[in-house]
């Protein structure tokens, strides 16, 4: 098992390598380069820009720059933000917990809602509940997350007010109200709308998938055997069928991880949630290259780590899988 995890990690290194090369050359080959903003600034003279270029090593050939960047990255040094003059690793480090909090909570809620819906739909397929859920999931799957987020803001922030205080019903923007930094309850309050926006589409997608996966499993011989033994319905569904039906879901989640982070980017942008997605969006508007590269690389690493975890979870759920 350990050697398997190790091998998976080793396999991902070439993938990370390809990603880093592509991204680095893409970003660095853009005209203007990292100093575009400085060049447009009339207060900075040509000489100063040349000094800056020399200092940042922008005159070296691209492969040399890439080698230096890669070497730095192995030492945990992602460079310095051009706009904020701060180490990128520090900026990203501040944001990672916030993104993981948002994505983690949304994901837990997704599973807590989607799994029961999937099971109930599969228990009585083509019932009224099943038809309703199928329609609802089709709607949920087709709603763009940015439109949903905007709609939630319009309804729960702009239109509806708290009848006692006259303030908006739910807060929008940031993780905490002014003066309540670090208060857990306030953060949970701020999580409500972003998490709703983020999880609705996933709930639709996963409950639908689990429904069909359950329906497949329910035709299997071992389910019939379990029933023939006289086991209670609940035991058959939740113990015998669910455990097998959930396996493909784990694979699907692993494959979906990049799009989960993409959803987080939209939600963070709309709700000004101080996570990596918001950091990235701000950096893209300001053409802050080191931050852009840093965020993409860290996100890629996060996704690969989650993939390995999903693989290991698969082995834990399915004893037939052997890591040889």
């Amino acid at each position, binding site marked *: 098992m350990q050697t398997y995890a190790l091998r998976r990690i080793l396999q991902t290194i070439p*993938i990370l390598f390809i990603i880093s090369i592509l991204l680095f050359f893409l*970003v660095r080959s853009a005209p203007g380069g990292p100093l575009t903003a400085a060049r447009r600034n009339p207060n900075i003279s040509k000489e100063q820009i040349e000094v800056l270029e020399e200092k940042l090593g922008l005159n070296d050939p691209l492969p040399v720059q890439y080698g230096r960047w890669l070497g730095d990255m192995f030492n945990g040094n992602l460079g310095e933000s051009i706009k904020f003059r701060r180490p990128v690793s520090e900026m990203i480090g501040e944001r990672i917990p916030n993104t993981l909090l948002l994505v983690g909570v949304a994901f837990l809620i997704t599973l807590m809602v989607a799994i029961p819906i999937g099971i109930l739909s599969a228990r009585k397929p083509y019932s009224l509940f099943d038809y309703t859920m199928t329609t609802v999931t089709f709607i949920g799957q087709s709603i*763009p997350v940015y439109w949903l987020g905007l709609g939630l803001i*319009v309804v729960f922030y702009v239109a509806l007010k708290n009848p006692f205080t006259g303030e908006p019903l739910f807060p929008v923007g940031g993780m905490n109200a002014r003066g309540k930094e670090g208060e857990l309850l306030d953060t949970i309050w701020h999580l409500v709308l972003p998490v709703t926006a983020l999880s609705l589409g996933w709930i639709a997608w996963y409950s639908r998938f689990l429904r069909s996966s359950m329906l497949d499993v329910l035709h299997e011989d071992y389910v019939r055997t379990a029933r023939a033994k006289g086991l209670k319905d609940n035991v058959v569904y939740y113990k015998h069928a669910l455990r097998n039906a959930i396996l493909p879901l784990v694979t699907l989640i692993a494959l979906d991880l990049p799009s989960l*982070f993409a959803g987080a980017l939209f939600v963070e942008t709309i709700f000004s949630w101080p996570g990596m997605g918001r950091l990235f969006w701000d950096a*893209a*508007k300001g053409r802050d290259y080191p931050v852009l590269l840093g965020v993409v690389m860290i996100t890629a690493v996060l996704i690969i780590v989650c993939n390995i975890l999903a693989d290991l979870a698969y082995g834990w759920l399915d004893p037939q899988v052997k890591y040889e």
Partner: protein
Amino acid sequence: MSDAPLPREQSMGRIVLRRFFKHKLAGIAIGVLLVLVLFSVFAGLNSYSPTEQNPTNSFAKPNAANWFGTDELGRDVLSRIMYGGRVSLAVGLLSTVLSIFLGITVGALSGYFGGWLDSTLMRVTDAFLTFPTIFVLIILGAFLREQQLFILQNSIFVVIIIIAALSWMWPARLVRGLFLVLREKEFVTASRALGGSNFRIIVQHILPNCVGPILVSGTLQMASAIITESGLSYLGFGVQPPTPTWGSILSTAQNQIFRAPWLGFFPGFMIFITVMAINYIGDGLRDAFDPYVIHSEK
């Protein structure tokens, strides 16, 4: 030998079509999509221009003259949405076609030839699948437009190309999987025995057997391409103003959320209804192409 009349022969296409329209919602979805396409194609019939500003008539609520109201510059929102539909639908369709084409090429080569070619191509495919796509799309969207190449000055082209460049992996995997199975079939051996070239076997013999799954995945692809384009334009890195698309109209609406909260409704609703129609069509196609159902009908 019985004299019972043979059942009338039916072509595959005919069976698929009949089965498709049995799925009522898919039939309705085709109609909805058709209306949406006509709605955008005939945008010129609207007497309002999508870009003409009328500062004296800004933030009009939906009324008899401006059905969807007007935005902060007094532009007619209905007209903007009709013109925006052209861009959104065209980008969705063209980027899907391009991405499916790329995917078929990679998948067919990989699945048919196998060996080192397969493992190299699949490694690259995996690398692209690990990419958090939207991040790269934003970088590409922001930087490609600044290139000096003439064709890249047009943000619509840029968006089509980058969406295709980052979504060919799914059809590639699908086609590879199909080819792995189909290349072992007798008809392939037969064609090879008759001296059929690899190209001929791939294009004329194996590929036609993949049409169903490719079409189904194409619909999914198109739905997600439309969502991606709108999202990218919404974030400000897609199609650039003044060209309206549903995403960029939504983006300007967000800035006016307090003054005119209704502005965001229509562009988002258009994206939603289009994507939903395409998803239902995909569902219908999946049923229509399901080989088990076709056999049991004989």
